[in-house]
């Protein structure tokens, strides 16, 4: 009976063939403890009431669903709405999840939070809630990312977090996650690992989805209020895929709503320098779950490449692999160049500077909206704001505003 219960718990961690709990034995008991704690709060109204209070009064939810009139007119097709996660406190959707996990950590009596971060947005969001609740915080970050995301490193330190530089392997997000797992193995008694995406071992993909679900729940209410009907298409960028899963999950049962995830195409799929796990990878196991993965034929994990540090990850959340295989969602790619162009276009047309991650979703809308009817509706998840990327943009487009370039519209 006990064994049966255990099997059931783990089966809950599978989305078709994907997911699972591929972790060292030392993490099995802590993951079971976490699963039980999460299941307990999942049915506890007082937990969600407390979380909703922080989401409203601290993070600034609900985030607006904004009709992008000038972008829509410019594209000449479907109406484009932007779900403005960039308006949240800390500048992205990441705060939805870190508030939820930190509240759970507090209920479990864990006094120390650890997190991995790539672009630094999840690290900042974790450092923020650690400060809010008076918890210790250590963020693991690849040495390369520390270099290219210096402002976020400083923000985390201002918030009282320790930032641990990881120089092993490719010195990016996947290596930061390896190191966070190694820390957790040694500190499980007092430490809660705040994973930033719908990736990692069960229960993380399910738990992070539950905390990000608010994006889609709000968007559903808001589009019905503004348009009186459901959208035709949702578009979101996918690295690990938490903002996409947050937007999609509410709409998955609504067959008339098409779901599209956008992977980072980097320099192009054909070059091999990209971060498109679903479009350019094979099924594998990394960081505790089975999913599509960028890897060599021999099963070594390959380095991902994207201009956007937040998408620069060789894996993808297991539920996305499942949605891909079942055809419920489709996954496309957008290159670095297309994302940069979309960043400038949205800035000019709407006065909104998107994060390079989110710009991948905007670029996809720019591609597909013109071919859609005027009475159709697209919702793009604008998962974060672009302030953190100004240095990258200045580097890749140094001459954009010289000699009248960029003045044409």
């Amino acid at each position, binding site marked *: 009976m006990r064994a049966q219960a255990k099997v059931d718990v*783990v089966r809950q961690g599978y989305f078709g063939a994907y997911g699972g709990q591929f*972790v*060292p*034995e*030392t993490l*099995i008991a802590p993951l079971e403890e976490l699963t039980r704690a999460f299941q307990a709060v999942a049915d506890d109204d007082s937990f969600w009431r407390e979380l909703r209070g922080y989401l409203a009064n601290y993070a600034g939810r609900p985030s607006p669903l904004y009709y992008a009139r000038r972008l829509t007119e410019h594209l000449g097709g479907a109406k484009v709405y932007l779900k403005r996660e960039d308006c949240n406190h800390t500048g992205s959707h990441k705060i939805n999840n870190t508030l939820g996990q930190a509240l759970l950590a507090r209920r479990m009596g864990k006094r120390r939070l650890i997190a991995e971060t790539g672009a630094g947005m999840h690290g900042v969001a974790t450092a923020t809630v650690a400060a809010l609740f008076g918890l210790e915080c250590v963020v693991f970050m690849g040495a390369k990312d520390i270099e290219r995301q210096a402002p976020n490193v400083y923000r985390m330190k201002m918030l009282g977090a320790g930032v641990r530089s990881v120089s092993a392997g490719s010195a990016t997000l996947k290596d930061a996650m390896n190191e966070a797992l190694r820390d957790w193995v*040694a500190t*499980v008694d007092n430490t809660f690992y705040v994973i930033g995406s719908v990736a990692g071992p069960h229960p993380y993909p399910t738990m992070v989805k539950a905390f990000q679900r608010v994006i889609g729940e709000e968007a559903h209410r808001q589009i019905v209020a503004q348009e009186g009907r459901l959208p035709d298409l949702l578009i979101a960028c996918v690295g690990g895929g938490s903002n996409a899963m947050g937007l999609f999950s509410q709409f998955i049962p609504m067959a008339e709503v098409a779901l599209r995830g956008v992977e980072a195409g980097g320099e192009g799929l054909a070059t091999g320098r990209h971060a498109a796990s679903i479009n350019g990878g094979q099924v594998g196991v990394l960081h505790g779950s089975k999913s599509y993965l960028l890897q060599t034929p021999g*099963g*070594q994990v390959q380095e991902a490449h994207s201009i956007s540090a937040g998408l620069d990850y060789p894996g993808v959340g297991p539920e996305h692999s499942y949605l891909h295989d079942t055809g419920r969602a489709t996954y496309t790619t957008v290159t670095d160049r297309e994302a940069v162009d979309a960043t400038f276009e949205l800035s000019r047309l709407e006065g909104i500077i998107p994060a390079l991650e989110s710009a991948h979703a905007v670029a996809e809308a720019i591609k597909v909206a013109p071919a859609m009817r005027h009475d159709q509706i697209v919702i793009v998840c604008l998962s974060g704001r672009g302030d953190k990327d100004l240095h990258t943009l200045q580097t890749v487009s140094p001459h954009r505003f010289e000699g009248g370039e960029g003045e044409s519209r």
Partner: protein
Amino acid sequence: MQRPVQGGVQGGSRGTARLAATFGALRGAGRKALVLYLMAGDPSPAFTEQAVPRLAESGADVIELGLPFSDPVADGPVIQAAGQRAIRHISDVPAFLALVRAIRRRTAVPLVTMTYYNPVFRYGEQPFIAAALEAGLDGAIVPDLPLVEAGSWRALCLEAGLAAIFLEAPNTTPAHARELAEATRGFLYLVSLKGVTGAERGLGENLGERIARLRGWVETPLMVGFGISTPAQARQFGAAADGIIVGSGLIARMESAPADPLGAAVAYTRELRAALDSIGG
């Protein structure tokens, strides 16, 4: 009764049977087992090929061979660095098994691999098991394939005779520890501490209690590893269990003697062997 033969048991047994013969002989002689870990291909396949038989002759009872993986989450800095050096030479299963085959021609010592699940998964569980046995491997430790995910792996290993070796941790619940002890083949790998390989933490966490509990359930050899590097620790942990597993300590010793890493490894093996053999009873 079989005499313990350092360097392995002769006579054509392989896989789980070879490990059972070795541990049975050691138990019969009242001796503790020494399992040494080497990263295959660090710093070169030729070195590993030469080192394994020498360590077996010097007192190692089982050799654990690391198959390099890009993302070794269970390993500390010493083995991570060894993996990064080795992966330039050995980055897939065929290259690894070619080295195993060469080693097997030189020694009958039991060989088990320690790797991560993704290379095995990509190669295919069943093909991996068949090729591993054919090349001369006797067992496999896959630390990120816990029992709950190892249904088909266990069944296929059992059927083919490759020892699927599971790990038990300080925070494993007693009920689950029993499942692990009954599932494992060859030996049960007791993780001495909550942490990664090579960590320094003094006494093993609740190790005596865990061992006493396990002894009540199974006859399977209980081997302790993670964080054991000195002869004093070898004596202490060896006395409590059926033997010890040493990896980071061996690699660190070789790194400290760049002029003659093999000589340093042999000397270190003898120190550990002597420490284990000094355990009374």
